[in-house]
């Protein structure tokens, strides 16, 4: 079934996009990632112009995280206090990101910088998660009780002034830490067209030392608000939000997210983490190859 996208000015197969949204939605519900880091590259691969892909993927991530947030909220899996701080940081971050975006766009180096940024982030995070998850799994296999890794925040976080109690997360840290984290992620949301869950989730575990139970829900909470703001920013500045494209992706992803959340409750968390890290690492490898291989198109056209 072909359908014409009014902003992208092209005809696409509706079913393919709904299925794409569905696949991303399942991952989103399972891992607490928005899925933008998969949607955007896949849409570009399908032939949708990069800016429209990024802007519309952001809209889709909002919808996918709404059902995720609700699902986790019911299970008491959202730390609202922490979430609010992350959103506040994200708000400033997305404004800063918009500035960087336009500078890079003018220089024509947007896609290269994005790819390099992705590779650095994904390799670091994916590697860290894979190592940890594998250690936990093999310890369990050997019948050893995993020496319960003391959950604690990064020493740097402890140096920040002013401390608040985050009861749901079970930590006592400075509010500046989550705000700074939110800022960085908000910037990446605009630049990369991603929710930032794949950065937030590990950062919450390894840097803030939050209780795993609330990590996914809280990250989705932040993603929900920051992507909604980013959609507005895109609508106002780039005019690149294709509501039909976003709608098609949404239909698939909101349903997928529900299945994903259910699956996540059934699967062992260590394997879940290993799965996510493998996904992240393979994406990084694909991007590295993409940078080195001769691109399919040497020339690109940009309207003046």
């Amino acid at each position, binding site marked *: 079934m*072909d*359908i*014409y996208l*009014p*902003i992208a*000015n*092209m*005809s696409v197969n509706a079913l393919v996009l709904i299925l794409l949204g569905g696949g991303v939605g399942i991952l989103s519900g399972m891992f607490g990632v928005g899925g933008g880091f998969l949607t955007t590259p896949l849409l570009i691969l399908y032939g949708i112009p990069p800016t429209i892909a990024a802007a519309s993927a952001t*809209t*889709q991530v*909002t*919808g*996918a*995280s*709404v*059902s995720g947030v*609700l*699902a986790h909220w019911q299970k008491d899996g959202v730390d609202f206090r922490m979430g609010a701080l992350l959103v506040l940081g994200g708000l400033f971050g997305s404004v800063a990101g918009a500035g960087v975006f336009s500078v890079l766009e003018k220089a*024509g*180096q947007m*896609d*290269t910088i994005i790819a390099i940024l992705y590779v650095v982030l994904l390799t670091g995070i994916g590697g860290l998660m894979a190592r940890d998850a594998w250690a936990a799994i093999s310890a369990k296999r050997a019948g050893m009780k995993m020496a319960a890794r003391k959950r604690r925040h990064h020493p740097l976080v402890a140096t920040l002034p002013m401390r608040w109690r985050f009861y749901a997360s079970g930590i006592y840290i400075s509010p500046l830490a989550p705000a700074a984290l939110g800022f960085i992620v908000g910037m990446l949301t605009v630049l990369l067209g991603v929710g930032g869950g794949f950065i937030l989730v590990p950062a919450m575990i390894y840097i803030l030392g939050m209780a795993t139970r609330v990590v996914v829900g809280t990250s989705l909470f932040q993603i929900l608000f920051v992507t*909604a703001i980013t*959609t*507005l*920013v*895109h*609508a*106002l500045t780039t*005019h690149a*939000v294709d*509501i*039909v494209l*976003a*709608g098609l992706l*949404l*239909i698939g992803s*909101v*349903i997928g*997210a*529900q299945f994903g959340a259910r699956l996540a409750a059934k699967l062992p968390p260590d394997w879940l983490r290993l799965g996510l890290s493998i996904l992240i690492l393979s994406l990084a490898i694909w991007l590295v190859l993409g*940078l*080195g*291989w*001769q*691109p399919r*198109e*040497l*020339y*690109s*056209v*940009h*309207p*003046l």
Partner: protein
Amino acid sequence: MRLLRLIFFLPAMLLTLAASNPVLVPDVSQRKIDIIYSFTGAELLLFGAILYPGGRVPSEKADIVVVLRGPTQPILVREKQKLGGLIWVNAESARFMSPPGYYAIASSRPLDQLVDERTAAIYELGVKNLQLSPASGEQPDVQRRFESGLIDLFKRSRLYAEAPGMIEITNGVLYRARISIPARVPVGAYVAETFLVKDGKVLAVASRDVQINKSGFERFVAESALRHPFFYGLVAVGLSLLLGWGAAVLFRRIG
């Protein structure tokens, strides 16, 4: 440009009448193409008749060339180069002020058999004769490289098309050419031109305007996105929240 062409053709037209040359009666199948949700491209039929003096078809028949061109838009073309033998990055760029967003040409015989280089260049017949108006002041060879890169890219996305020898002329009088328009065309005012060519000369030219525009819902969406961006953004966010919440409620019911 249009005026220039008119001045150019006026003598030719007068000559046509005087020297009893064939006359052209062209038309297009559609003056207006609407892009709606199910638009996957369109086919435009350019057809018409060649009226020979006395109604007799001579042994030396005239040929037909048709061109459909879309609105021009200034663009920047970027070229990727390998940096330090490692990664591919955008390096050089060139600006073109007047490449048409769409250009298709069809003819009853291959172009090089119909007109010489000079005539082809004057009438912009053929993709390589398009006036792209490069504006960066590059070296000619660099410019040519960018031009061919741009043309190649547009050809493969079917925005530029050449169909030599695709026009049939029935009984030497009625001609028709099918031009396929891909879904990805720019919207705006198109011009369908028909050229009557004989002995390497363009005897007559006629043009018809064709409008390609979004209509209905597609038009509404495209216009709202530009005119009421904040509202449009709010609706997009609202839609995603509603769908996300709807799915959650639905699944809770199902259990």
